[in-house]
């Protein structure tokens, strides 16, 4: 299970990854031109997450990592989420 025996990511996969990232970037810009308001926020963040997932899976090889590594990769996100939810809990209900 060493990295020597790891099936290596093919070059073509990398190129394909790059292309899809640029497509998503184009999408971001296009969506921003067309949409405004709350929906635009959601769209922009969704596309960003998609890009991040692609980079993570293909460039950073999360695809082939152990589940433990994946767990730690997501732990940071989960903790930000906790922080945001509980803090917002204060801001949303202030002055009620």
């Amino acid at each position: 299970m060493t990295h020597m025996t790891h099936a290596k990511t093919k070059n073509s996969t990398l190129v394909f990854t790059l292309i899809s990232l640029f497509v998503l970037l184009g999408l971001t810009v296009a969506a921003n031109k067309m949409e405004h308001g709350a929906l635009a926020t959601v769209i922009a963040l969704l596309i960003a997450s998609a890009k991040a997932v692609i980079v993570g899976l293909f460039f950073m090889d999360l695809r082939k990592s152990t589940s433990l590594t994946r767990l730690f990769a997501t732990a940071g996100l989960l903790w930000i989420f906790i922080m945001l939810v509980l803090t917002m809990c204060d801001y949303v209900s202030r002055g009620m």
Partner: protein
Amino acid sequence: MSELQKTIEPSPPRRLNYINHDWSVASWLWPKDHKRIGVMYLVTITFLFFLGSMPAILIRLELLTPKAHLVTHDIYNRLFTMHGVTMVFFFLIPSIPTTFGNILLPMMIGARDLAFPKLNLASYYVFLIGAILAMVSLVYGGVDTGWTFYTPYSTTFSNSAMTPMIFGIFIAGFSSIFTGINFIVTIHTMRCPGMYWSRLPLFVWSLYATSLIFILGTPVLAITLLLLAAEHAFGVGIFNPALGGDPLLYQHLFWFYSHPAVYIMILPGMGVVSELIATFSRKRIFGYHFVAYSSVAIAILGFLVWGHHMFVSGQSMYAGMVFSVLSFLVAVPSAIKVFNWTLTLYKGSLVLKTPLLYALGFIGLFTIGGLTGLFLAAMGVDVHVHDTYFVIAHFHYIMVGGAMMAYLGAMHYWWPKITGRMYPEGWGVFSAVLVFFGFNLTFFPQFVLGYMGMVRRVAEYDAHFQVLNVLSTAGASILGVGYLLPLGYFFWSLRWEPKAGPNPWNATGLEWQSPSPPPELNFEVMPTVNGPPYDYDTVALHEEGIKHV
């Protein structure tokens, strides 16, 4: 000295261990051996403890009288800030993990070293630089904000040496992060054959939980301090309400780290106590799985309760309630530990040596401190006692009565392993008793003071509080002596006490299978594990057992 050891001793071939295998200066300045790094931490941190208690002595002396006779208000403010910052960031947070954790974690799981020895060394020097920077702020007159650095006072109004202090803590934070990463990776990848998770010593479990907090909490503190520094240096409004900011946001960010940080301070102590109780009851720990998982539960739940420091800050009432109920729930895993420790004692075969005394002291004092934590988590009561001496008493009960006791317990328990020498048992018992009584005399009166309404961070108080304050100061002197004694006899033991042998306590952990002090790569034969932890049932119960030395 046991008969057994005497017969072995006569012609020992000079065995090389991690201390004497290389005496070159470089090998001590840049060691990669976790044990040496641990010893360097031990020395540094013990020094920082005494440094941090100097202001405590002055605080107690000042509070002997109702008026500010000894020092001015301004100096008093710098004293308690210095005391709090040093004790929290430079003593208690790194204390047990970086010393005993560093030395013992690889040995307990049967590894030759931590996963990243260079990172470990880096963590030490990063810590040292941080500590020195914080001391530099002393040279520039100290900081007068309290260890919590609340804005807008700290950023706009205080003109004390904030910058070196903030960067000192910021830098020391990276030391915590490095240690956390190192421990997590080591525990995950370097356990020896047979060392399943369900066989890990409880101390290792607690270090794992602590490391989770290190890596998930510390970065937030770091970034918060950076924002604070930016606001302070450039006068831009990040938290300053006059510039559109919200000071409560700072408090949220600060406590998001600093509440979990209190579990950084106590979890390793709990791990130590689990070890001590099992060893000196000569009995398998009760409810191993519950004790182990409750550490992780505390680490995770601990991130959900920070708002209990902000009940009267202007935070929304509803948010307060969420934080309050979660605070009550986080107490349950702690309660489970207390429950299991006492049940371990039941039907044990107790060996009342110094380490066990400290462990028992821990149980009692931590319970009091923890229960008063519930008083504070109870919102209606906290409105009254917030920022009074009740809070001061609460956290000293846990941090001094709990964590500090565990630190001393660990010191006595593993001293033979680390140095190869015993400590004088009589003196050990004497100072443990002194510490226990001195401690209660110092801090119990403060609960009363707090409920009577004596606020914290003041150099002056109303005359009718004096009696209790005098008691407290008297207690502190006894406590001080209790802390000085070990400093003396540990040094003394290095030369004058008998050699300990590999396993003076007849304990089961892997660390005891190696000679004392251990060789450079920890074990002469790399161990494998083929039984449950704390298997004292198979170590014959009524063996002549532990020898007086």
